[in-house]
Each structure stands twice: as C-alpha cells, then as structure tokens.
C-alpha cells in the first residue's frame, strides 16, 4: 500500500523534475525575448534522440551525451534565434508562438519519418544501475539521480539569475531591453545566447529523460502541452515559481495515479482550470 503510493510519488517527482527544468527554460526565454517557445518540446526530444543516436551509432556514452547533446541543441537554438526569431521582433508575440509551433511540427515530422512512432529504449548508465531499499520503498538509483541533478541545475540557474552580474543583465533585459542597450550591453547577442541556453536546458532534460521513458518522436509534444499548463498555473513571472510549480504538479500527478488513476492524465489541466477560477493571474504570477 504505502510502497505503491511512494512508488507513484517518486514517478511524480521525476515527471515534476522534467516539468521544472522545461518550464524554467520557457520562463527564461519568455522573460527576455517575449517568445513562448513552442519548440521547447522538440528541443527536449532532440536531446533524447541525440543521446540515443550517439550511443547506438557512435558508441558515445551517457556522460558525454549529457553535455554534448545540450551543447549541440543550444547551438542549433542560437541559429534559430539569429536566423528566424530575430525577424519577428517588434511584432505581436503571437507570431513567435506560431513560428516555433511550425518548427516543432517540422522537426517532429522529420523524426517520425526517420524513426517511426514506436519508441527506442536507452539503457541506464552502468554507474547508476541498481536500486536501494529504503524500507518503506525501493529507490532505483537512476531515478534518484534524475531528481537530484534536475534540482541542482534548476537552483544553480536560479542562483546565476538572481545573484550574478550576468543574471542582473538578464533581469534588466527582461524589464527594459532598450535601456540596457543604451548602457552598452550587447542585447541582441544576449537574446541569442539566452534562447540557446533555454534550448540547451530542454535538451539536457531530454538526455536525462531518455533512460526513464521511451525515446519517441512525440515525447516532446506530449510533455510541452503539460508544461504549458504548468506555466499557466505558476505564471512565468518568477523563476522560482516555475520550479516549485513544476515539482508540485508532478507530485500531484503521482498522487492522482495512486488514488484515482483515471484522471492522472488530466489532473494537471483540471488544476489549471481551478487556478484560473480562483487565482486568474497564476500562483506566482503578476497579471499582464
């Protein structure tokens, strides 16, 4: 009984770690660029596939992939910002959403064409196999690693943004990019790098997710819709809010799987409806 409950809560916590990582990236990109990055899911999927392709075709292991795949997707992201998104600056921000939506469709279609819809599995790295019996539940080591690593990445991103000079530029750019440019900061470059960083975060989540879920072309679009709901609930105004909401909703999903399995797929959207009813600006958001 409790074993099963804690098992589901752990799965929820892992999902929540991915929600947190992804909504963090979305919030950073949205904050500075005013773009809702629909391609975030595709970038997550790309990360997972790069890891899988690296291992299957080139024999590149997990630990290298954990850094190489985000770097590759980050560079790709910077190219997307520089070549495509930059042209939309000054237009209604709906166009950014539509552009990244088109990109996501195209990328997902390409991978569906290349790999089919059935999933590929990615083995857990040798150092992290096995499980520990904690008495009240059995904890697979890799899952513990996912939660810890995501939390570390999330909180270090938060620290960088809140406490460093670079973060101060980022926050200033979020408030008023023109003023920041007037002070001599290369804001266009900052936009490019920030988008690349967000994309890299998504790919990082993708590599971490590869051994947990099946690597499929649709894994990105499945998760991004939930993450959007997370973002609506948390509001994109606060980085810490995005992290907390992501983890919380993952746990809620896990609890739902145990107590009421039928609604576990929809509980996030139900929570979104409730939040809209009671606190329309979102839990941590400012109305804008």
């Amino acid at each position, binding site marked *: 009984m409790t074993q099963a409950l804690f098992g589901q809560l752990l799965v929820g916590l892992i999902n929540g770690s991915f929600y947190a990582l992804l909504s963090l990236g979305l919030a950073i990109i949205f904050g500075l660029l005013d773009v809702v990055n629909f391609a975030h899911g595709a970038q997550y999927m790309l990360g997972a596939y790069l890891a899988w392709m690296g291992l299957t075709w080139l024999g590149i292991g997990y630990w290298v992939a954990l850094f190489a795949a985000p770097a590759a997707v980050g560079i790709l992201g910077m190219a997307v910002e520089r070549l495509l998104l930059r042209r939309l600056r000054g237009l209604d921000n709906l166009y950014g959403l*539509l552009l990244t939506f*088109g990109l996501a469709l195209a990328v997902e279609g390409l991978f*569906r064409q290349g790999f089919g819809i059935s999933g590929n599995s990615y083995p857990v790295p040798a150092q992290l196999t096995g499980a520990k019996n904690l008495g009240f539940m059995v904890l697979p080591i890799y899952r513990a690693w996912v939660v810890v690593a995501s939390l570390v990445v999330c909180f270090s991103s938060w620290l960088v943004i809140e406490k460093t000079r670079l973060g101060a530029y980022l926050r200033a750019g979020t408030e008023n990019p023109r003023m920041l440019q007037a002070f001599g900061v290369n804001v266009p470059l900052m936009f490019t790098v920030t988008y690349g960083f967000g994309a890299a975060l998504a790919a990082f989540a993708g590599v971490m997710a590869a051994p947990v879920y099946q690597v499929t072309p649709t894994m990105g679009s499945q998760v991004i819709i939930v993450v959007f709901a997370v973002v609506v609930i948390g509001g994109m105004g606060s980085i810490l809010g995005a992290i907390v909401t992501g983890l919380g909703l993952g746990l809620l999903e896990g609890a739902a799987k145990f107590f009421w399995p039928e609604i576990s797929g*929809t509980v996030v959207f139900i929570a979104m409806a409730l939040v809209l009813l009671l606190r329309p600006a979102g839990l941590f958001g400012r109305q804008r």
Partner: protein
Amino acid sequence: MTVRARAVLGYGLLVGIGLAAPFLVYPVFAMNVLCLALFASAFNLLLGYAGLLSFGHAAFLGAAAYAAGYVTREWGLPTEAGLLAGVAVGAGLGLGFGALAIRRSGIYFAMITLGFAQLVYFLAIEIPWTGGEDGFQGIPRGKLLGVLNLDRPLVMYYFVYAIFLAAFWLIQRTIASPFGHVLRAIRENEPRALSLGYEVSRYKLTAFVLSAALSGLAGALRAFVNQFAALPDLYWHTSGNVVLMTLLGGMGTVTGPSVGALLVGVLENYLAGLGSWVTVITGTVFVLCVLSFRRGIVGEVRALVKRSF
C-alpha cells in the same frame, strides 16, 4: 468597378465554383474541404477579428463529431438533431472553456485553450463508447427532413454546401455588424474599448462561444460526411491546422480561411501517401507564412488590388 460590384462578382464566382465542384472533383473530398472551410472561418472570427489565438479549436470540432454520431447512431435521432447536438456541444464547451480562458490574454490564452483541448482528447480516450483508437464508426447519414436520402453523394454535397453558405453568411453578417466592429476595436486597443464602456470580456466570450458553436457545426457535418468520428479530430495537430489555414489564406479577411482550407485540404489529400512528410511540409509552410507572408493569400491579393486601382 465599384466595391459592391466587385464583391458581387467575387461571391458569384465562389458560389458558382461551389455549385460545380461535385462534378469536377470527388464529392467527399469537396465536402471535407467545405467543412474545413467552415471550421477555419469560424476560427477566423476569433483570431482575425477579436485577436484571440485559440490553440484548442480541435476540441469543438472533435467533440461535436462524437456527439452528432452518438445521438444518431445510438439514439436513432434524425440527422438534423445530430447537427443541433454538435452545435450545442460546441457552444457548451466553448462557454465553459471560454469563460476560464478569457481571464488571461495573449500568449496565456493560447496555452490555456491548448490545455483544455488536450483534456478533451484524454477524456475521449478514457470514455468507453468513443471506440478509442478505432474511432466512432458507422454514423448513419440519414434522410433530410425524412425525405431526401443523404446517402446519395450529390444530395449530401448540396446539403453540406447549403449549410456552409448559411453559416458563411452568418459569419460575414457578424463581422459587418456593430458587434463585429466592437470586436475589432477590442483587438486594436483593449484598454480603450474598456474605457469607452464596452464590457470587453462579455464581447470576447460571445465571440468565443459563437466560434466554438460554428466549429461544432463543422465537426458534426464532417462526422456525417465521413460517417465516423476519430481521435485525430481532437488532437492538437487539428488545432494547429486550423491556425495554418487561417494564416495561409489571410486572417482577418472574410474569404481567406476558405482559401486556406482549400489549399491545406488539397495538400493533405494529394500528399497523403508521403506519410509524415506532410507534417514536415505543414510545419515549413507555417514558418514561411509567419516569416514573410503574414497577410496570407487573400490579404496579399487585396493589398495588390488596392495598390493598382
């Protein structure tokens, strides 16, 4: 030519093509295009005139298709009742989702509607009578007014066409009405419309419900055309497709969405053998439209005509 004469000529041409269509192309294909055109026109009412980007219109199309199928196949009600059920389900869902979604604007509105549509999609998977992956099959077309046999392709075509024209006229009237003008005012400058004393959220909600109800009509009609309702109707790809049709044809133009629906319909029909390449092409067209073709086909033509006369 006066503007009015040009409009009469344009509409006359469109009506003529519509009348001749079943003799030129496969009627079921023509009917599907008409349903998509109605769907896109309904969507455009919201995006093009109220400036609200919904990413969840698949929910209204798909849920109405299931509802129309259910009341006719399971309860044996006539086709007209099936259409009404579709409209009612579309409007009902639109009222529920709209009331919540309009509490946030812009980008959040899009994400909220996407989430609600996904909720409906998951529900359709869970509910046993929808038939899950197999879809809801064997929807009877029935007899119109108990007399006209809709199983005959031409009869069905002209029935669909008549409904399309009626709905199109309704949308066009709505756009031209004072209500439509207020919607445009809200799109252009919401705080100003509010300060002029318009109840902005009520206008937005009305537009949303109307758009959802007409999308429901399109969905119910399509269920009778194809005689089944299926999960892809509810999938987010469908919501994306209707955005593409509107964008490609020209958002904020009366005829644009129909032109876009025709193009997307042709694309999907003739490229169906290419598998997932269709998705790749759709995505690429999306990107190209957003980058350099934001007025859409009808918008560009209109700008060209304006410049040369």
